[in-house]
């Protein structure tokens, strides 16, 4: 069967079960868009290419599938870079198609030409420039395979205009590409080591990360914890991988982790770290991180091992398969925890939990951002897919919205990209039209991709924006308050649009709450309509996120705001 490049692209997308593309047309992709016009493949027209990548990213995080975007060459391609780097840091599978000038013009500084494979080399898992039509089908197949195999990540495929206009024979049954899948190798000796360490431990702790969600290993991790009564803390990316409502859950650890999670890390004598990479926001000073513990680190990527924290036992492997092996080994060898020592450990944690719970003071006058998030959790009964922007809004969400299921907390962890939440929510809502999808935003970050309100309006993608509006770049202001003697250098965002009017101008619903008594009403109203809604909550301006570990300190040294307890 003879097909044109543009047809082959859509054929392979169909084969790869891509059911939605987030994109933006332009000169070099006109032919592809012409083909899309004749196809029934769903395409969402975003308003900025960065939004396309974040939307595909949100879609991928919520579904576990590969997200797909399509943009034009030059500025279209460079606009995707922040989105790609965001996905790369969090290991999210994406395939980003960029148009390219015809092969005869590459290198000539042609109109809208840029070396996008060169630019994205350090922030993709891999990328391709398709130089001739014969390699088109196999390259696209390979791109999807690379994106989802092993430690997932974004793959960029650059498509020169002339290649896409050329015809070639297309036989879907005969597309060859390299296989990168690494077969899981059980490591019984290592399992025996874990067994011994666990047996010797009096204060064991599990630390769960994004790799547990990506590896679909939540069930195994939850089973391990519950069966052997091992408490669990998690990184930002790990939220949802263990039920937040479970008594063994200690909340997030790290810079804005709970007091009890950070204390547990500092006092545990055995740490099973699964699918984490020991980011500096998690560890505080490396020397004091889990200093009393034997550390076992399970991760699929060898380059994550001993990168930041030197561990006692690294196990390289798929999180799900490895946890299964471990569960089987513990069962076969009749591991049983010492009930007395385990109770003492859990009691010790509970004492920390009672001493410094996660809390805030809500009065009748001013809305506290934490209250908005707690109320949102109450009203949705936690049955919602939440995206966030970056900063205080993200940390309060991590602290105060209990995530019970994997793939329900969608946030830019590694890169910390402001402007992620709204387009990501659009992508999530496209995948789950019947679920509540809420972007918990700040007034700074929402303005970074606010144009995507038009996308939501055009397709009636009923995302809900909970805007915690404090008129500041809140997290930067917090650092200025704590470390720069309140010199609020360029963080005051009081000059901002009227967000309710702005929402209306975009054709979506705008609501506002200025008093605590209005919070529940506005949320109920916003959640009840099947339309995109922006809810502007005027919150306490100088509220800080606590606990906080100051940069360069041990995570057991926490600043607790008004309830100053330093250990």
């Amino acid at each position: 069967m003879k097909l044109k490049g543009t047809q082959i692209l859509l054929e392979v997308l169909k084969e790869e079960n891509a059911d939605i593309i987030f994109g933006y047309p332009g000169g070099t992709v006109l032919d592809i868009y012409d083909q899309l016009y004749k196809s029934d493949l769903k395409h969402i027209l975003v308003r900025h290419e960065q939004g396309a990548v974040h939307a595909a990213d949100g879609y991928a995080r919520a579904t576990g599938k590969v997200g797909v975007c399509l943009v034009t060459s030059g500025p279209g391609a460079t606009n995707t870079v922040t989105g790609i780097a965001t996905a790369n840091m969090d290991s999210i599978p994406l395939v980003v198609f960029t148009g390219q000038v015809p092969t005869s013009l590459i290198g000539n500084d042609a109109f809208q030409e840029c070396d996008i494979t060169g630019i994205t080399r350090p922030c993709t898992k891999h990328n391709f420039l398709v130089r001739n039509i014969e390699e088109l089908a196999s390259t696209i197949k390979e791109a999807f395979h690379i994106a989802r195999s092993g430690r997932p990540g974004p793959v960029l495929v650059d498509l020169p205009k002339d290649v896409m206009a050329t015809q070639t024979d297309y036989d879907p049954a005969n597309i060859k590409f390299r296989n990168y899948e690494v077969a899981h190798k059980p490591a019984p000796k290592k399992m025996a080591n874990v067994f011994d360490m666990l047996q010797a431990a009096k204060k064991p702790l599990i630390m769960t990360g994004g790799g547990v969600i990506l590896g679909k290993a939540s069930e195994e991790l939850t089973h391990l914890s519950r069966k052997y009564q091992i408490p669990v803390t998690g990184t930002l990316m790990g939220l949802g991988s263990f039920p937040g409502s479970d008594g063994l859950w200690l909340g997030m650890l790290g810079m804005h982790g709970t007091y009890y999670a950070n204390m547990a890390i500092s006092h545990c004598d055995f740490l099973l770290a699964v699918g984490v990479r020991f980011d500096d926001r998690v560890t505080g000073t490396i020397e004091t991180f889990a200093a009393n513990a034997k550390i076992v680190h399970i991760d699929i990527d060898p380059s994550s091992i001993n990168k930041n924290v030197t561990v006692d036992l690294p196990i390289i492997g798929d999180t799900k398969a490895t946890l299964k092996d471990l569960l089987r080994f513990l069962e076969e060898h009749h591991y049983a925890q010492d009930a007395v020592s385990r109770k003492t450990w859990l009691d010790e944690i509970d004492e920390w939990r009672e001493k410094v719970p996660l809390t805030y003071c809500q009065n009748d006058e001013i809305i506290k951002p934490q209250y908005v998030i707690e109320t949102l959790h109450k009203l949705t009964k936690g049955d919602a897919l939440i995206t966030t922007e970056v900063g205080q809004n993200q940390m309060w969400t991590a602290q105060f919205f209990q995530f019970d299921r994997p793939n329900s907390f969608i946030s830019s962890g590694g890169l910390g990209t402001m402007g992620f939440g709204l387009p990501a929510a659009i992508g999530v809502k496209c995948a789950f039209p019947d679920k509540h999808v809420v972007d918990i935003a700040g007034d700074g970050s929402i303005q970074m991709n606010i144009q995507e309100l038009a996308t939501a309006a055009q397709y009636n993608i009923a995302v809900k924006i909970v805007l915690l509006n404090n008129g500041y770049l809140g997290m930067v202001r917090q650092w200025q308050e704590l470390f720069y003697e309140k010199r609020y250098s360029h963080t005051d965002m009081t000059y901002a649009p009227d967000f309710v009017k702005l929402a209306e101008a975009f054709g979506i619903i705008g609501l506002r709450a200025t008093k605590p008594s209005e919070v529940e009403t506005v949320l109920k109203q916003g959640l009840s309509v099947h339309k995109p809604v922006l809810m502007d909550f005027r919150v306490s301006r100088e509220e800080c996120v606590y606990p906080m570990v100051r940069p360069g300190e041990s995570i057991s040294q926490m600043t607790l705001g008004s309830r100053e307890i330093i250990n």
Partner: protein
Amino acid sequence: MEKKAHVISILVHNKPDVLARIAGTLGGKGYNIDSLCVNTTTQNDISKIVMTTAGSQATVTRIENQLQRLVDVISVDDLTNVESIYREMVLVRLNLTTQNSETVKKAIDMNKWKVIVSGDKYVIVEITGDKTQIDFSLARLEPLGITDITRTGLIALKLED
């Protein structure tokens, strides 16, 4: 930790960007490449890259892991801790004048340097050996009046698999 030179042998798929990817991965993470040699193997679609870098064992392990993550990298082998042979080659051009031509010719004979081309005004010699041998020869060539040299990166081969 002790810093020392490590010779890393990398098998890669012979793709257009592969060297850029490897150089970028190392450069982007702050590691330096001291010497580099690339060519195809007996298979045209597979190349071998031999690279010298300096660092502690931990750093070099990190480099190996980072390289291993690249899709086009087939295998990464640190030859430093196994028995291997090392070779470099240098091409040297010496200018011949009426004053020095006798001295140069004597030196070439005495040191058994391999002459590749010789003319009235110049002679080009080729020297192959490990780093010490080459450094030694270059020291002897220097006083004769070197006008240009090209030195390859280090290549290496394990004695056994």
